């Protein structure tokens, strides 16, 4: 795949390897408890996990294992009940709602299972959306959006509405939206869950390229071993506990 990553600061080498020295994400004794009526449901139980800069990590586990909850806490859209989640040295759980929103905008790109594009906006406008809250000029926004759409191979579909795109194309637009503000971390929650195998492979390759060529740290939630195989490492969760971590395919 030919890439134009001109708007993303690439490392000098063509391929970026993740650094084991300073983890981007440091999770310590993380617990999340949901209150359901009179009952407490433990979604995560004293989880410890490090994710290095430039790493591609797959979080695996059966439904209800807590993998999405962990992803949400890492991405700053949920808060732990106990424990610590440092991302880039910042304890995101201690940020105010406003600061957290700003932090997410600058640091996290989201890719969802059901794409979550705005149906009344074109592909171009969907990708432009995160840039509307920046001080970039219209011309600068255009440059960024066109580069992101080119990166995901959808320059020729920029004026199409989501309803006029295939599932795979929609997810690629969502990836373009995730990377357009140039975040360090991309979180993908079952991004291939609604796609056929060919489109899924294309999306996973794209995430892999963003990781390897642009140095983005990618955290992927999946229960598909084929999808997890694209990652450097997998972390298995069950009943809220981290069972093991290992290299993909191990």
């Amino acid at each position, binding site marked *: 795949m030919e890439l134009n990553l001109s708007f993303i600061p690439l490392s000098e080498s063509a391929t970026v390897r993740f650094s084991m020295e300073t983890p981007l994400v440091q999770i310590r004794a993380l617990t999340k408890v949901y209150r359901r009526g009179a009952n407490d449901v433990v979604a995560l139980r004293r989880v410890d996990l490090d994710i290095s800069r430039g790493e591609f990590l797959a979080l695996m586990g059966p439904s209800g294992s807590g993998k999405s909850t962990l992803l*949400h806490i890492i*991405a700053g*859209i*949920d808060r732990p009940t106990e424990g610590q989640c440092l991302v880039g040295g910042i304890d995101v759980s201690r940020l105010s*709602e*406003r600061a957290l*929103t*700003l932090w*997410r*905008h*600058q640091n*996290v790109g*989201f890719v*969802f299972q*059901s794409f*979550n594009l*705005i*149906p*009344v*906006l074109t592909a171009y*406008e969907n990708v*432009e*959306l*995160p840039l*509307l*809250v920046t001080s970039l000029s219209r011309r600068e926004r255009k440059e960024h959006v066109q580069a992101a759409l080119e990166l995901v191979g959808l320059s020729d579909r920029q004026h199409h509405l989501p309803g006029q795109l295939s599932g795979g194309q929609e997810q690629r637009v969502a990836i373009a*939206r995730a990377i357009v*503000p140039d975040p360090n971390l991309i979180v993908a929650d079952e991004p291939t869950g609604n796609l056929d195998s060919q489109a899924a492979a294309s999306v996973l390759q794209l995430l892999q390229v963003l990781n390897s060529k642009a140095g983005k740290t990618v955290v992927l939630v999946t229960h598909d071993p084929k999808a997890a195989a694209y990652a450097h490492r997998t972390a298995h969760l069950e009943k809220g506990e981290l069972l093991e971590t290992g290299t993909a395919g191990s």
Partner: protein
Amino acid sequence: MTIPGFIIRNAFRNRRRLVLATGGVAVSLLLLTVLQVMLAGLTDPSATDEAARRIVVRHRVSLANMLFASYEKKIQALPGVACCTKLLWFGGIYQDEKNFFPQFACEAANLFNVLSEAKIDPQQRARFIQERAACVVGIKTMQRFGWKLGDKITLMGAMWPCDLELSIRGVFSGTADDTNLFFHHDYFDELLGDKGFTGLFWIKADAAAAVPALIERIDAEFRNSEAETKTETEHAFQLGFVSMLGNLKMLIGSISTVIVFSLILVTAGTMSMALRERVREIAVLKAIGFDSRLIFGLILAESFGLALAGGLVGCGASFALLRTVDFYQLSHGLFVNFEITPHILVVGLSVAALLGMASCLIPAYTGLKRSVVDGLKMPD
């Protein structure tokens, strides 16, 4: 794309709902402004400088009780009185009962001294004064019946046992009520056999400042007489006349409140539906960096825009309606001043805009307090 562009896209995402909601607001605003115009026309007679100098003297008991015509000389002699005319409600029928318009017997020589803002050709005025069976008619009534100068008309007595055969000798305009017809009190007295009474005295004071003292003086003059008087400003007299129709202010106020309440329901319902459809989108916006205040601003602007658009359509429609439809004819002369003023339009649009904003508060609050995670879990 810009933030305003995004708001417009959101507003237009369901066109049928947009049209229905805007239409709902527009109809409510149309009704509201028409009612306000009606209320203003009935309860707020125009208060010109000339009108502020006029007072009305009537029988203390009621309008149905007559006053002695001889009071006029005593009134004329009081300090502060510039001029005075007797005035008597004739209430006759022109061809058919539905052709209602106000008819008064007056003293022709003094009428236009009291009603000094009236515009009338001096020659027509002179002919009216000279001719005992002459009358002058307001321009609106002339137009309503297609009368011309010189026409002869017959008013059948409904309250009085006489019919009037009148010649139209003058047309006036520029008064608060250009529907009136005035004829000679002498002619009426002659037909009735000069009973020596009249209905009212219509007085013009030397100055507006002299009015309160003059009111006191007139009532004091006739206290303990056979026909005690009640003197009041022309404005107060007109309002008293309107109050005979019942508590119109309360009635129209109640209807207006219902309309405003419906308006809240229309816009709140629309915004609730619109936001319920967008729970996940709001969660996504929050996730990608739109803070709650900005999202609230987007919702507020959309609701405001929707209500204001409906308000503009409604106020525009009422403006066009009141400009094109002759409510004087339609109401058989009940509504004389039926004019939409800039003040009423501004009030109408402000009501729409404010309610548009107010009605989105609860749906917006409900939508925004939901966490990103909960929002993302919502089904499409």
